[in-house]
């Protein structure tokens, strides 16, 4: 059984954007509102955490963040207008481009920021992190590869699975070279989710899990991890072991969130935030600002909004009767879910410290763009479904 193909009339971009049957009206409104709300909250939090910086003017980072969000929104809209089935055709191109950029990072063109050699500096204070773009690109390629089931079954062909693993392995290899453990983990989650939802056998899933555990053990005991990564894990198991060193982030993060109590201290009123006690507060630890300044209610709102995004994503995936679309949507949901849980979890002390941003909320150029493109893809899948 082959996927049905719908013929689309050639129309101008403008009429597709705002016409009576334009994509915008067929979008998932709840998803749109939730993402917009998260971006708005994120903007306030980024502002609050960066306005006391000595190096830039108080609204400097805010302006950069808003600019990125605008670019992201445009990209999201453009992607949403594309028929998602056409995305399938673009998948190899997108993957090749992302792969090329990733490879470029390893060359002298790449730059190191905060100990991570994952950047290509563009000038004007903007940089590109190809590993972020690799996430949606890999989703597209993997979904394309395994969406065609074997003859007479609803399971992917072993050859396709092998190819998918090869593509994922190559990408992860390049990311590991940077090294970026967090992104590698996200790519692993993406690969696993695509394969699982494509319908591979449970024993394969079990096999993958066993391999993952063995690999993790190998990485741990063979000393492939950087000392700081080991220390982060130790500190997670026992934050009091080194409160001034690695445990500092975890301790300060908990203090900031905990001291917000029910209603929070109010925007710009968080003493821990103003005093910049939590490192990387505008990026990986943005959730602590929400916790301190908006309290339990605010922090819970952020979690609920992220939950809405995830649940809408799952709904979109379920409602899509096309395997490719469903796989893309499911992989995006898994990716966002993983990053949300790891990020929020580490700020409240139930996950080890990992350098992963909070989707839609954290400051971050390429990550925000990748997130918005992915939301665009979800919208495209939603509006492209047959009703």
């Amino acid at each position: 059984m082959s996927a049905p193909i719908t013929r689309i009339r050639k129309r101008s971009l403008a009429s597709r954007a705002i016409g009576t049957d334009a994509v915008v009206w067929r979008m998932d409104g709840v998803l749109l509102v939730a993402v917009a709300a998260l971006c708005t909250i994120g903007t306030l939090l980024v502002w609050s955490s960066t306005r006391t910086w000595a190096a830039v003017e108080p609204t400097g980072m805010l302006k950069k963040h808003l600019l990125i969000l605008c670019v992201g929104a445009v990209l999201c809209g453009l992607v949403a207008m594309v028929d998602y089935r056409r995305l399938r055709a673009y998948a190899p191109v997108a993957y090749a481009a992302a792969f090329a950029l990733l490879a470029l990072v390893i060359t002298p063109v790449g730059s190191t920021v905060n100990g991570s050699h994952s950047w290509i500096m563009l000038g004007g204070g903007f940089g590109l992190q190809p590993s972020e773009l690799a996430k949606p690109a890999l989703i597209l390629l993997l979904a394309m590869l395994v969406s065609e089931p074997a003859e007479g079954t609803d399971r992917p062909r072993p050859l396709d699975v092998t190819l998918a693993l090869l593509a994922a392995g190559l990408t992860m290899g390049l990311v590991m070279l940077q090294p970026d453990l967090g992104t590698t983990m996200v790519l692993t989650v993406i690969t696993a989710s695509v394969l699982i939802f494509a319908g591979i056998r449970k024993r394969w899933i079990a096999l993958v899990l066993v391999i993952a555990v063995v690999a993790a053990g190998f990485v741990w005991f063979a000393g492939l991890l950087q000392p700081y990564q080991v220390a982060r894990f130790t500190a997670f198991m026992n934050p009091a072991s080194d409160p001034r060193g690695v445990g500092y982030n975890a301790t300060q993060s908990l203090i900031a969130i905990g001291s917000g109590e029910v209603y929070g201290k109010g925007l710009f009123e968080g003493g821990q935030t103003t005093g910049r006690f939590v490192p990387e507060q505008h990026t990986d630890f943005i959730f602590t600002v929400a916790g301190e300044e908006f309290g339990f209610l605010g922090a819970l709102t952020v979690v609920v909004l992220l939950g809405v995004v995830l649940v809408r994503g799952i709904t979109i995936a379920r409602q899509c009767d096309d395997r490719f679309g469903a796989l893309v949507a499911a992989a995006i949901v898994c990716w966002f879910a993983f990053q949300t849980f790891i990020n929020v979890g580490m700020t409240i002390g139930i996950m080890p410290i990992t350098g992963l941003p909070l989707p839609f909320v954290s400051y971050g150029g390429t990550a925000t763009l990748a997130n918005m493109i992915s939301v665009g893809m979800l919208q495209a899948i939603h509006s492209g479904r047959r009703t």
Partner: protein
Amino acid sequence: MNRMRARFVVLHLTVLALLIVLGVRLYQVQIVRGKEFVADATETRTRAVMVPALRGQILDSAGRPLVRNLTRLVVSVDRTQMERMPHAGQEVLEKLSAVLGTPVAKLRERLRSCGPGVSRPCWTGSPYQPIPVDDRVTQREALTILERQEEFPGVTAEIQALRDFPGGSDASQVLGYLQPVTQEELEKRQGLKTSFSGVDLVGRDGLEAVYDHQLRGTPGLRRVQVDRMGKAIGVEQQVPPVAGDTLITSIDAKVQSIVEKALADAMKKAPQADGAAGVVLDVRENRVVAMGSVPTYDPKVWTGGISEKEYQTLLSEKAGKPLVSRAIKGTFAPGSTFKVSSVSAMVADGYPINGIYDCPGSYMVGARPFNNFRGIGLGPMNLHTALVKSCDTIFYRAAYEMWQRDGGMQPKSNAKDPMAAMARAYGFGKLTGIDLVGESPGRIPDRFWKKELWAATRKTNCTRSKTGYPEVKDAARAAFLKQLAYENCLEGFQWRPGDAANFSIGQGDVLVTPLQLANAYAALVGDGKVRSPRIGWALIRPDGTSAKVIEPPVIGKLPIDKKTRDYIRNALSEVASDGTAAGAFGGFPMDKVRIGGKTGTAEVYGKQDTSWFASFAPTKNPRFVVVVMVSQGGMGGSAAAPAVRQIYEGIYGLTGQPPALPAGHPAERLPVIGPDGTVKR
């Protein structure tokens, strides 16, 4: 697609479960443990900074400052913070070194803690306080540090008050000094425990120590909001400090200066003198008008950290231990100045005050002859002349007779010991209770004391009585020592007639401090009441109101009537004109101010005599008691008396200089301090 749908359901449930986990954990962190984290946050976000109160000044009786405050820009380094930095803050110290122009090694020296093997310069205070490394920085240097706090973490520059001494080394032992609070003291003082101020100094000696609490004031508290780097970004709470009280003393800076000069001159004139002390008391209230001790030192050495060399000098024997006030800590045999006590004892014991007593050149006390000064006999005389001419044999006889009446070598259980009892009534042998630290009680020896001494020294004495003193080269001396050891071993617990005789003329084992002697004379020529002398006169609050007027308490009464006191005073009134001090007071305008007094020349084995002159003026209605002691100064009339003369000349302005006290008496009213700190005289 069914399999996929089933797996979507699993995904859906997983996502919901994870979200619930996050929500529950948020509830736990923010609501259940919220209060705990609020407390943690306050602790990390704020820093309590003690704002030291301005220490009160110490003024003289006319309101002139003896100790005042100078404001200086002080750069301090937080050592705890330095130690957390790479290479113990080497980079920061290098930058600081460039700004201050002090080598890094020197800065490091000042930052280390004093302790065994670590000599000054080092930090004696708490390691948790910022340590001042430079107290003479310019505004420019301070601004460089304050404006670039990111480059100088742990380094602060602030205005601090430093002690300044307008009188230089005058009265340095009386005023005392400040030193950083030690860790132990800090822990004892609840209020200081959280202090982060480098100016927490504690009075270590003299008035600074005795009135430390009042002078200190109440430190203020500033709860400062800080960022991660410890940089202050706001003030959360502020309690202003309350400045310390001003201490007005009865010291007159001008008289003090005269005393210091007189003592220094006396030292110069007596080549072997190794120290001197002078005390000027206001007779009426028993307040201290001046108190000096030489060798002295400039208390400025304490300000801003003392070097090891300077510190050792202050403690060294060679420099004459200038830290020690000989006026209250130096104990010496008083010699003939002590006879006022012996005469009083005689009269109190029934010797007729107008009786005639023989003053032979020598008097047999038991089996041993006790000689007059130079063995000269002066013939029969009354007690008046005995004091003026300083006859010894009359007192030997009286002491011997008293000793015999007490039972001699088999003392009665109710022995009266009139001489010792009178000496104690004059305040000898115990602390005067002056408002200074480290006073010595001196010593009034008696039977009990002898017994204790014997018990303590018996073993050595008995061994020596057998072995002798082979290490002593002089054969006669060795034999004498052996005999002495033998006697002491055998009957050292006995109060022997010789002890009693020596006691009566202030020799032997009698030891007094110059202040005790002055205090005794003040009681004698005053109203007969013994008072505890005071230097502090009043404590004035920062707003100019009086916190406390300090009255010298009466601690005893002389057991002799006014007639006896007047008799003795009259006798002493002739000493300076016709007696043993006549030489020193030759040409002194006695018609303007008549000086009374008593010389003392106390023998010290192996050393020059201790020279004393205890005096009062005017003789009719005494307002001052002046006592000068010159250790190893020789005769009382030749070293101490001229110094006393110099002091009176200064006080009354008898040598052409304007008088130090134009009124002819010490200040009787407190200077008025305005709320702005100005002094109205």
